[in-house]
């Protein structure tokens, strides 16, 4: 029924509704949540392996050894070019010719031993000095190809950082996967796998694999050169040469020196400053890198216990580190129980 009042809207008037007697709704049931397990062993292994990778390079002195190797590579760079080696070859020829010139003048002028003691020693030792110098040069030259491969390794001195960073990420990953919020598990594992992939790929991207084998050959090729005995021998040879040059440039001038012998002696004296500078800088570089060489050798003997070269196995160690970290992080990902799947 509708009742209308003056000027107002119509109003509906209805009888009151009776009470409803509805049946009780049944309870809503859901499937029970599947039990998720967080694999304990891989996460703990990842954590421990990460600690080992973080601390190992620091405690084992890997940073200093690799830096020493890098410094040696850098400092030998000027001597490992074709031009420099040719110049050294030329220097040796000047010394050889100078010795021959002195010999000729001695014979031609019937010079008695003792008048020029420095030149007497030079005549007696010049052949041996020549042999030693040539042998040294040949050894350096023979190592050049290997040296170039080692020098081509990209970021050689960054390798310890790479290991330590991968270790730190593994520690973080191990902690999150074992103790952290489950929702962060997947992203953390992805991060760890990415870092692991970078470590494993580094040897191939940086030519480390090729350079490491060459490094081993270079170490072996330079082993007769990089010794304190060699440096001492070179210093003794230098004393013989400077003394000879001193006499040639002063008292020996009074002796007639004509023809090709005179020219050979003149060339020796005239070329002495650049020649001795070459000699001194090479001896200095060898001497200053003896410790660096030993450090590099230490790296190579790191894995002597298992009968392989440390340098050659280094790239594979990195690959192994990458693979292990990746595997452990994936294995440590939380997953449902088998019987619940």
């Amino acid at each position, binding site marked *: 029924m509708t009742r209308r009042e003056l000027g107002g809207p119509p109003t509906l008037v209805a009888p009151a509704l009776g009470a409803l007697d509805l049946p009780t709704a049944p309870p809503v049931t859901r499937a029970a949540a599947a039990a998720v397990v967080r694999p304990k062993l891989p996460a703990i292994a990842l954590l421990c392996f990460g600690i080992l990778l973080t601390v190992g390079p620091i405690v084992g002195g890997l*940073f*200093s050894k*690799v*830096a*020493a*190797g*890098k*410094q*040696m590579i850098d400092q030998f760079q000027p001597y490992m070019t074709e031009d420099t080696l040719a110049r050294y070859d030329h220097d040796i020829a000047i010394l050889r010719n100078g010795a021959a010139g002195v010999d000729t003048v001695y014979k031609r002028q019937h010079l008695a031993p003792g008048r020029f003691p*420095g030149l007497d020693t030079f005549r007696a030792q010049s052949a041996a000095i020549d042999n030693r110098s040539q042998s040294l040069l040949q050894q350096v030259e023979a190592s050049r190809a290997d040296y170039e491969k080692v020098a081509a390794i990209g970021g050689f*001195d*960054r390798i*310890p*950082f790479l290991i330590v960073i991968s270790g730190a990420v593994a520690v973080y990953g191990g902690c999150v996967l074992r103790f952290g919020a489950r929702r962060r598990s997947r992203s953390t594992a992805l991060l760890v796998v990415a870092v692991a992939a970078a470590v494993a790929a580094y040897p191939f991207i940086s030519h480390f694999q090729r350079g490491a084998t060459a490094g081993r050959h270079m170490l072996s090729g330079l082993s007769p050169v990089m010794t304190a005995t060699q*440096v*001492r021998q070179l*210093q003794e040879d*230098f*004393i013989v040469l*400077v*003394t000879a*040059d*001193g*006499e040639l*440039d*002063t008292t020996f001038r009074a002796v007639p020196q004509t023809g090709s012998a005179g020219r050979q002696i003149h060339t020796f*004296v005239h070329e*002495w*400053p*650049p020649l*001795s*500078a070459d*000699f*001194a*800088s*090479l*001896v*200095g570089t060898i*001497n*200053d890198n003896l410790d*660096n060489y030993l*450090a590099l050798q230490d790296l190579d003997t790191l894995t002597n216990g298992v009968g392989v070269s440390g340098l050659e196995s280094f790239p594979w160690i990195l690959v192994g580190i990458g693979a292990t970290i990746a595997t452990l992080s994936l294995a440590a990902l939380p997953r449902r129980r088998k019987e619940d799947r």
Partner: protein
Amino acid sequence: MISRFNAMSRTAAAGLAMTAALTLAAGCGGSSSKGTSAAGSGKQLIGLFRLTPGAAHGKQLTGTWFRMLQPKGDVATGPYMVNGDSPADGGRATLLTPGTSGGLRTNAYQSQPAPAFDSRGNSLADSITKPTKFFGVQFSISTNEVDLQTKTKVAPPTVVDNNGRLTANLASWAASWNKQNFNQGAPKPVSSTGAQAPGQQEATRVFDWVSHKYLNGAPKPSVSGTGATGTYNASTGAFVLQWTSLIVDGPFAGFTGIWHLEGTFQPGSAGPSGQ
């Protein structure tokens, strides 16, 4: 290795003590008169140590000279390197003559010029001594804020007079020959040229700073060994300074320089650094 470390520590400590004494002398001494300042129990001599040219009378050497001792040799008896270009003592000594400054300035550097060498390796530094022929090539002396061989920052030359006895810090004394630089100072600068991992230098600097500021750690010594010694006559200004300096690293590692400076001290303010 440990004994070597201990030895190094001892020499470093000795050097440190000497440097500390000299630094204290330099820092604490108020100027008492021109060219001298109180330095602990001694007086620091600031000015020019004008060198007397070297001369040889037979085996007798006077003035300013230098010898180079072969490895494992004895300072008094040799064997010395025989410099064919020197007439003194059969070449076993090389006589030096004063350079454009007249000698050695204290409390200032007389640095190596640029370029340091000509195309034939002759040293061009001519402030302290004139370039002198040594094994066919001219060598000379300079004092540099950053040592040319060890790359370590060193103090300028300082000389302290203690009642006629001189002690000197000449760590910055460097010889240049044939495009090579050799520290020939006393005490010896500790080398800063060792291999370093990327970032190691910065890390070491931070560690040293933290150690010094919060752990009361002593600053890392930059020199080792003892300084030069000598005599001084305050009334005439006549002085003698002498020292030996082992060549560390480089082509002549193991050789030792024996230095003898003689002349007259001329008090004055510290000269400008450089030539």
